[in-house]
């Protein structure tokens, strides 16, 4: 068990709360920097995907986990970012400018989607975003002059100022830098008034309002930032996958994104990345083990959906706080080690209350 003696207020504000944090996150950074030399090409590509989805996850986490607004149409923002990147880099824009422009465009779309969010809640918001997702996907497939329509659009490698990220490793570093910056920005936001306003809105709109929080502004802001991050993720995704087609940004993608943050653990920044590891890793894990299963099961079509669904069900049943929640428990157990008390983590009975009145 670690006891912290606080001596000034800055200590509560700091990102790394104690030496342990500095050490472990430093180690993680080192490992990430060394990854291209440590991992096989295949694993590095997976890691790149994880970083990309992690960035998108950060955005959705901000929206769903911290502001309490659930979007079932996030693939739309993801797609806007991806197509914007494809189009702008197609015009020869350098990567950073295209990325920022794409993020801005996504954010603008996010504001438009956020508008209904001001009036509707819960399931209504979910369906509103879902509807928006459908409409945006339709635009992707109909606006052929820009998106290439259903024929799809190819995207080149990352290029900026005479440098081209043409190897897997160099693109990995691009993603790493973006992911780290995005994470820091989110952490900063969450420890400042805006982040607190988001959480306040999540927990009680009426008292947030009476504390002077402009609900409309902060909800739209949350949508905008979330969409911008999704757009940035989408831009990276465009470079990674190099071929965009409208069906990559459909409802299934949206649900995948939502599942990602839920499984990662709503309301934690770690959760975004843990969720991404899960989302990218699980299908690979399934295909890795399926050869060892009996033919009738291992080779049957539909296996992936079953495992995917079952893991999801398992998570909700046994670890509603997601991967991050599980990690916290493991850590608490290790820290307390000889003094672990039975029932420490026993789930309390809890009772559902109507969320229609919030």
């Amino acid at each position, binding site marked *: 068990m670690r006891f912290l003696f606080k001596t000034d207020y800055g200590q509560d504000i700091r990102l790394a709360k104690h030496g342990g944090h500095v050490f472990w996150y430093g180690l993680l950074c080192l490992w990430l920097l060394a990854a291209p030399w440590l991992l096989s090409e295949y694993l590095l590509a997976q890691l790149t995907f994880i970083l990309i989805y992690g960035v998108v996850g950060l955005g959705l986490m901000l929206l769903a986990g911290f502001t309490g607004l*659930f979007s079932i149409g996030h693939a739309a923002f993801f797609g806007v970012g991806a197509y914007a990147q494809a189009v702008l880099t197609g015009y020869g824009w350098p990567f950073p400018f295209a990325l920022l422009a794409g993020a801005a465009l996504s954010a603008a779309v996010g504001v438009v989607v956020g508008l*209904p969010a001001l*009036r*509707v809640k819960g*399931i*209504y918001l*979910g*369906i*509103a975003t*879902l*509807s*928006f997702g*459908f*409409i945006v996907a*339709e635009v992707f497939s*109909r606006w052929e002059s820009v998106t290439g329509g259903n024929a799809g659009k190819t995207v080149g490698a990352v290029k900026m100022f005479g440098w081209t990220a043409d190897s897997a490793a160099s693109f990995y570093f691009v993603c790493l830098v973006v992911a780290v910056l995005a994470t820091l920005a989110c952490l900063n936001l969450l420890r400042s008034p805006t982040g607190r306003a988001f959480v306040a809105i999540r927990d009680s709109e*009426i008292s947030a309002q009476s504390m002077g929080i402009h609900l409309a502004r902060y909800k739209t802001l949350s949508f905008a930032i979330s969409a911008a991050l999704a757009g940035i993720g989408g831009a990276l995704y465009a470079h990674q996958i190099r071929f965009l087609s409208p069906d990559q940004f459909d*409802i299934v993608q949206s*649900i995948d994104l939502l*599942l990602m943050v*839920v499984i990662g653990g709503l309301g934690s920044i770690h959760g975004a990345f843990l969720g991404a590891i899960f989302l990218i890793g699980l299908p690979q894990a399934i295909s890795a083990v399926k050869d060892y299963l009996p033919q*009738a*099961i291992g080779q*049957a*079509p*539909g*296996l*992936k*959906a*079953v*495992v*995917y*669904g*079952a*893991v*999801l*069900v398992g998570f*909700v*049943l046994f670890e*509603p706080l997601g991967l991050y929640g599980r990690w916290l428990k493991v850590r608490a157990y290790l820290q307390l080690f000889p003094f672990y008390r039975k029932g420490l983590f026993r789930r309390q*009975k*809890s*009772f*559902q*209350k*109507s*969320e*229609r*009145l*919030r």
Partner: protein
Amino acid sequence: MQFLQLVITGVAQGCIYGLIALGFVLVYKATETVSFAQGELMMLGAFFGLAAMTLLGLPFWLSVLAAVAGMALFGIVLEALVIRPILGQPAFSIVMLTIGIGYVARGLVTMLPGIGTETHTLPVPYKDQVWNAGGLVLAVEQMVVIAATAVLCVLLFAVFRYSKVGIAMQAASQNQLAAYYMGIPVKRLNGLAWGLASGVAAVAGLLLAPITFVHANMGFIGLKAFPAAVVGGFGSLPGAIVGGLVIGLVESLAGFYLPEGFKDVAPYVVVLVMLWVMPNGLFGEKLRKKV
């Protein structure tokens, strides 16, 4: 004439959406969760009926009964196994759970060798019959849907408005803790709600089967029923039907009179407009927390 025909097919299609939306609203009213598995339950119901008719060789009406009863039982078992353990968690957890259940159901059906990946027809006695009146045509399949939707809606409405159990379900969904304090058997009612929802899903699946065929992905039509439920106001049973009709009509007319592509997004545009004008749908209660 043309217009009338479009209206008629729109109404028929709208009833299909309404029928599925009834299932959503039912689960929502009774448990305050949105079941993303409703479409898959429908699919299972259709397969159940198919099995009863082709494997067991039962006659149609018996198969329908068997499928509805079987699915109701299935719903109860499902609730006991996977939903009850997290009863009381925020509704959102259960929503996630239903997504997972949907995946598993779809996957498991797909895994059935020789059946899951195929498309099947349900040999209903009224197949391919058409009702023709003065140049307007309506398939009997669709008329059956319309009739069943109306009957189910009235039945469910009565249950929730007048029966003790129906009111208790709503009570439990609004404030579970208080429901326990009142001695309402929350868990049992929850099981009942899922049983009921699965039964309704089975009815929908069987009625839809002649129109959409029976296959593992037939549940996706549920995505169109969400807008229907929302337009009507998510907590309202008659609203589900009206919402379904609105969506069906809009689709039908937009498909004919508007440029390509509008038919597919029309329901979603309607939803957005609706939520903008009436955030709680046509029949939804105007809700506001009193502080």
